């Protein structure tokens, strides 16, 4: 039996090596500090910060959260103090986080992304940059940059030009063919991909006869979307060779291993922290137990291990019908 202390659990994102494959997700994990009373942050691979934009944003009106079967809708609206205030007041604190801190950048134009990315990436406290290209783009009627291979490439290329730090493009599940978007992001210089952001959704209050979110529509996260996210990872892993941070409904080690077997090198935990803030640790422990029991020395042996091509020719004509 392999010794659990000797396991290689590391995950690489460009030049950044995370000692553990578990990541606290953007918008769900504060700056990490909010969860420090409940978990040992040193046992996380990284924390991805809440997305920051060029200018301050108050975000959407409440309600911003609605619980749905095995999941939740959120419509925060990228509340954040803007990059100036952020650099001046917040970023220095991240130096104390006992794991890697990954910055997240959002914007409404290619130029926004480049501008914020350059300023944020210049800071030592920030180990890598994630481009949240899954927020609505005013110029494209509710569709996001990540719904279009061309816009995806333009944002990634513009950001790439501003920094040598590892760059992660965060993809949207709201597309027909995520592999094409993934190829486009990688061709434009992304070192890794976060797969996937929330699925667009809505809930209606039948008593008041109006949408339940202040913003009308929101993003669905949690176990409900896990099968959607696992497939997205599987398809992206078959299309590109860069590391994937799998995410979407991971609650347990078993869930995390589904993503890893589908092709993810690391796994992100968002909504599950709201059900139990100890989730990233219990998930890590469960992954270790799985590896020990099966004599798997390095997590890399498992990455994509279920990604063995389609099962048979039925797939070609196969269907969900």
């Amino acid at each position, binding site marked *: 039996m392999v010794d659990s202390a000797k396991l290689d659990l590391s995950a690489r994102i460009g030049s950044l090596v995370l000692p553990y494959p578990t990541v606290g997700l953007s918008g*769900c994990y504060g700056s990490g500090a909010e969860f420090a009373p*409940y978990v040992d942050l040193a046992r996380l691979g990284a924390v991805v910060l809440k997305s920051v934009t060029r200018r*301050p944003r108050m975000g959407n009106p409440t309600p911003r959260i609605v*619980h749905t079967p095995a999941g939740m809708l*959120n419509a925060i609206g990228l509340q954040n103090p803007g990059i100036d205030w952020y650099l001046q*007041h917040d970023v220095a604190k991240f130096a104390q986080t006992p794991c890697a801190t990954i910055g997240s950048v959002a914007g409404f134009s290619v130029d926004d992304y480049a501008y914020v990315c350059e300023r944020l990436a210049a800071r030592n406290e920030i180990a890598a940059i994630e481009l949240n290209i899954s927020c609505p783009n005013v110029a494209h009627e509710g569709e996001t940059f990540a719904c279009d291979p061309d816009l995806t490439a333009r944002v990634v290329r513009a950001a790439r030009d501003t920094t040598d730090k590892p760059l992660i493009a965060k993809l949207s599940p709201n597309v027909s063919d995520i592999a094409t978007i993934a190829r486009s992001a990688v061709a434009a210089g992304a070192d890794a991909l976060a797969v996937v952001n929330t699925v667009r959704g809505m809930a209606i209050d039948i008593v008041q006869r109006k949408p339940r979110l202040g913003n009308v529509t929101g993003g669905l996260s*949690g176990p409900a979307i896990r099968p959607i996210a696992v497939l997205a990872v599987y398809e992206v892993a078959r299309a590109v060779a860069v590391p994937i941070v799998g995410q979407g409904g991971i609650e347990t080690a078993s869930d995390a291993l589904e993503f890893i077997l589908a092709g993810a090198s690391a796994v992100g935990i968002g909504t599950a922290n*709201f*059900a*139990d803030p100890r989730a990233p640790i219990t998930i890590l422990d469960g992954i270790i137990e799985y590896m020990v029991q099966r004599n798997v020395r390095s997590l890399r042996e498992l990455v994509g291990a279920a990604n063995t091509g389609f099962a048979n020719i039925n797939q070609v004509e196969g269907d969900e019908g």
Partner: protein
Amino acid sequence: MALASSISAVVPTRILDRSEVAHDVILLGIEAPDLVKKVRPGHFAMALLPGRQAAGVALGIYEAHGSRCSLLFFLAGDRTRRLGALRVGERLDIVAPLGNGFDCEGAQRDIAIVAGGVGIASVLLPAQRLLARGARVRLFYGARTAERLVEAERFAAEGCELLLATDDGSRGYHGLVTDLLAREEAPERILACGPTPMLRAVSAYAQERKIPAQLSLEEAFGCGVGGCWGCVVPIVRTSAQAPSFPPSEADGSDVVHARVCAEGPVFWAHELRW
């Protein structure tokens, strides 16, 4: 805006007792000796449901005495129903204590507590503390019907004066609890917890009369610990806070979105910009 989260922890508890104090209203006693020592009036807990596929539930800490705390809640939806299905002896983990809590140390001695519906769950500890300090505590308590005025007698037994109101007139004043408040002698100070429309009315009443009022807000929560920005309320950013509190969107505006779970859930009426 004091932060309690620095002292909060995941607390494994065991269910000591469970009763249905009214139709679809559950009182759960839990064994949590360390928590009893830490909890202050107005604190809340995130109850972590056993099993999977659910977010935690934000609940006021109703009682805290000896080694027992209790949670009082309405069966509102899936999560509270799952919580209500727990049995005596089963385990329940909670994250607590959370939130800033009510300030019960003011000089005033004639206090009105205004509670609407489930808001009652967050005001027993402040009532006990104020009574212990020798204050006169009037509980203005409103609900839909007499049956929903749960635990009223408990507050009377503690020493509160009861001023009850029901929407249907089945007990006490027939109408809104805030109308009842307005008809009575004004207090020196107000603590309130209940639905937003009630809190708005309390706020208007208090500000008109320049009575200091603390309101414990309810908002849909994601994380409950300040990590998701799901639970905000617009407040005015005073210049004293400015250095530590991020700016708002509109240039020049001093209205910002504060997190109910982290900066609250208790706010001063005059801070709020609903």
